[in-house]
């Protein structure tokens, strides 16, 4: 094996692949072999570093230098300057906006400073396609420990001590779930990994599977041992091709090493895993619908009880856990439940991975201890709002969650605190909204999503959300009355109370939480027929600011319906009755002489 003196870690997550990190990797390897350095310098493709905003990322070990936005064309310079001459490439270093200073080392970055990585510990650190790298970071040690020195009850007890709760959103104690499955007697039981990540803007599970697939396999085997299951399914959406590919490689490597299959490590324990592809229906993230889908049926939820722990896949006891939940298991076994319990808060121990998206500077993947405030996540780790705009709200929990306004930004992020203010943890998507976002429109967006994704089994969810959407559309078009807001609330409550599954029960949350925190905006739409954020087209009007207009005729020529009157060097005028509000004049004016209101 070559004795590498330097490792170049290149992010190979989906985000960085989209910005050509795979081309970059090939280019780096090509230049290295051209210079005869291929046995000295190792190029490693890793999972997501989390700093997706500035990808592709290249991290140089042992120098700990962190390069951002590296293009394939930069390869030669990196190798000639940094690797051969030992000089850092200043132009590719990250400049921290708040300090206006170039930061060489990853640990200096505020983005990483407040993070604590348990589930993501190997993401961006190891090569996910190489089982040896996983093993060298204590991989499969927890499985070995469990199989050789613990009883199934002791494993479950350890998980219960840790206080780990389901990371898919519900927050059900994992240890209890395992215990219930263990207590059901049957000739065959199943472990299911729920990788049907469906919230808009969420990519935590995908990143774990792409960056560290073995951790999930190891944890599933541990769960199998604890509950008495010999078979596992990973239910993943087909639109995650890279994650599926890396999982398949990982499963094959683990089988070759005998870490999956029969008689694992000579202990007589059998466990194997199968990947099951879903078509990407949101409702299949609900465990009973997911089980239906694995069986080849239409993905529709069932009534509970019976719970999957009693009757799941093929009618056998089944334990369904989310990807991130599994990613915490090996560390809990290795370091102990008490260690885990000390992280985070009393009722929500551990960490949580969040996908930061929306109007935030550092779009990416972060992992913080539970109880970290939303302010820390948005302003310190996330680097604040883009273009210096005003923060308006952060949407958590996807279509099942709600909005957190500025007045609540100091809330500690854990399961119970978020529920107490009408939102929820959800799987971990955080979408940041700024002053240019209209809250009524946001609620409308989520309702559109729910209409598409409702499976149609229950009337309140199928028809009710459609009606909610119609009322919201009326509001955004200025055709609503104040009474409509009351209708929204009343209908929402009915949907919540009468739907069968989690999708319907939580579907009205975006509507209710925006009404409770942004009633002013709703009122502005229905009473003043005005959209304060300037989003709802029907309520907008474009006018000429006479002080700024120089009479250049640019807007007049751009207007597709000829509703702008004027002549060269004369102040123009928009004829409101003919205006179709397309915004062409606003976009073309270089003198800020068109006002949108």
């Amino acid at each position, binding site marked *: 094996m070559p004795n590498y003196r330097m490792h170049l870690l290149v992010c190979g997550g989906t985000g960085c692949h989209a910005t050509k990190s795979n081309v970059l990797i090939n280019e780096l390897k090509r230049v290295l072999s051209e210079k005869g350095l291929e046995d000295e310098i190792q190029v490693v493709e890793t999972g997501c570093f989390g700093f997706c905003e500035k990808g592709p990322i290249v991290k140089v070990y*042992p120098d700990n230098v962190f390069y951002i936005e590296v293009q394939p064309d930069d390869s030669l310079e990196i190798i000639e300057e940094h690797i051969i001459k030992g000089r850092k490439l200043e132009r590719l270093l990250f400049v921290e906006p708040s300090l206006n200073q170039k930061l060489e080392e990853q640990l200096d970055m505020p983005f990483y400073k407040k993070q604590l990585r348990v589930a993501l510990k190997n993401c961006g650190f190891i090569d996910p396609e190489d089982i040896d790298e996983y*093993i060298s970071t204590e991989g499969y040690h927890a499985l070995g420990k469990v199989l050789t020195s613990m009883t199934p009850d002791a494993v479950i007890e350890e998980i219960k001590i840790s206080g780990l709760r389901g990371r898919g959103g519900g927050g059900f104690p994992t240890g209890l779930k395992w215990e219930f499955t263990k207590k059901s007697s049957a000739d065959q039981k199943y472990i299911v990994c729920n990788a049907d990540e469906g919230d808009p803007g969420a990519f935590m599970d995908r990143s774990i599977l792409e960056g560290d697939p073995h951790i999930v396999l190891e944890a599933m085997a541990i769960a199998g041992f604890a509950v008495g299951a010999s078979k596992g399914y990973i239910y993943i959406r087909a639109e995650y091709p890279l994650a599926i590919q890396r999982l398949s490689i990982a499963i094959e490597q683990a089988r070759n090493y005998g870490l999956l299959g029969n008689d694992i490590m000579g202990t007589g324990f059998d466990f194997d895993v199968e990947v099951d592809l879903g078509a990407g229906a949101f409702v299949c993230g609900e465990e009973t619908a997911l089980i239906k889908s694995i069986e080849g049926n239409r993905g529709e939820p069932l009534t509970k009880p019976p719970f999957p722990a009693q009757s799941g896949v093929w009618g056998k006891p089944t334990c369904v856990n989310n990807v991130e939940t599994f990613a915490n298991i090996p560390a809990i076994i290795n370091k102990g439940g008490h260690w885990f319990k000390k992280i985070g808060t009393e009722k929500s121990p551990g960490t949580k991975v969040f996908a930061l998206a929306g109007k935030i500077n550092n779009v990416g993947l972060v992992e913080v201890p539970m109880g970290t405030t939303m302010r820390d996540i948005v302003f310190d780790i996330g680097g604040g709002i883009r273009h210096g705009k005003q923060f308006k709200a952060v949407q958590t929990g996807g279509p099942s969650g709600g909005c957190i306004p500025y007045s609540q930004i100091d809330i500690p992020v854990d399961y119970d605190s978020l529920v107490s203010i009408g939102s929820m943890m959800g799987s971990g998507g955080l979408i940041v909204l700024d002053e240019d976002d209209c809250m009524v429109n946001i609620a409308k967006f989520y309702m559109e999503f729910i209409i598409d994704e409702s499976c149609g089994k229950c009337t309140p969810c199928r028809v009710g959300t459609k009606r909610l959407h119609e009322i919201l559309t009326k509001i955004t078009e200025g055709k609503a009355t104040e009474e409509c807001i009351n209708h929204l609330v009343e209908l929402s409550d009915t949907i919540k109370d009468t739907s069968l599954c989690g999708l319907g029960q939580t579907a009205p949350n975006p509507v209710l939480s925006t009404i409770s925190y942004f009633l002013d905006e709703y009122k502005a739409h229905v009473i003043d027929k005005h959209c304060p954020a300037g989003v709802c087209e029907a309520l907008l009007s474009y006018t000429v600011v006479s002080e700024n207009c120089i009479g250049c005729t640019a807007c007049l020529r751009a207007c597709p319906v000829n509703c702008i009157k004027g002549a060269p060097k004369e102040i123009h005028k928009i004829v409101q009755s003919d205006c179709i509000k397309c915004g062409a004049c606003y976009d073309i004016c270089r003198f800020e002489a068109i006002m949108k209101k």
Partner: protein
Amino acid sequence: MSKIKTFAELQEIRKNLENRMSLRKTAGSKDRIVIRVGMATCGIASGARQTMMAILDELQKEHIENVSVSQTGCLGFCDVEPVVEVIIPDKPSILYGKVDEALGREIVTKHIMNGTLLEDIIVSRSFETIK
């Protein structure tokens, strides 16, 4: 790839792989020592690459993990090439000249491991560098 038959075997495999990841694991530590080898044309011509490989080999043999070896350009001491600089945190850096493979190994065993300088081959610096 053969099957792992016992837990002990897994632990054995991990032990053998430790080396491979140590470079990454110790990168963040504050007591990381840097060894720089001058590898401009003159350095390479007088055998700097062999020196560097010897240093790397010695480090691996002695299981030393907190040392990173990097190349650097011409330091201007062409008559005493190959030149090797040892930078230990909070200590003035030491520059060695005419370091062949054997001396390279000695730098590791004496300077790095025992803190004893190789007095005979120290090159005194004749310049200041702007910060």
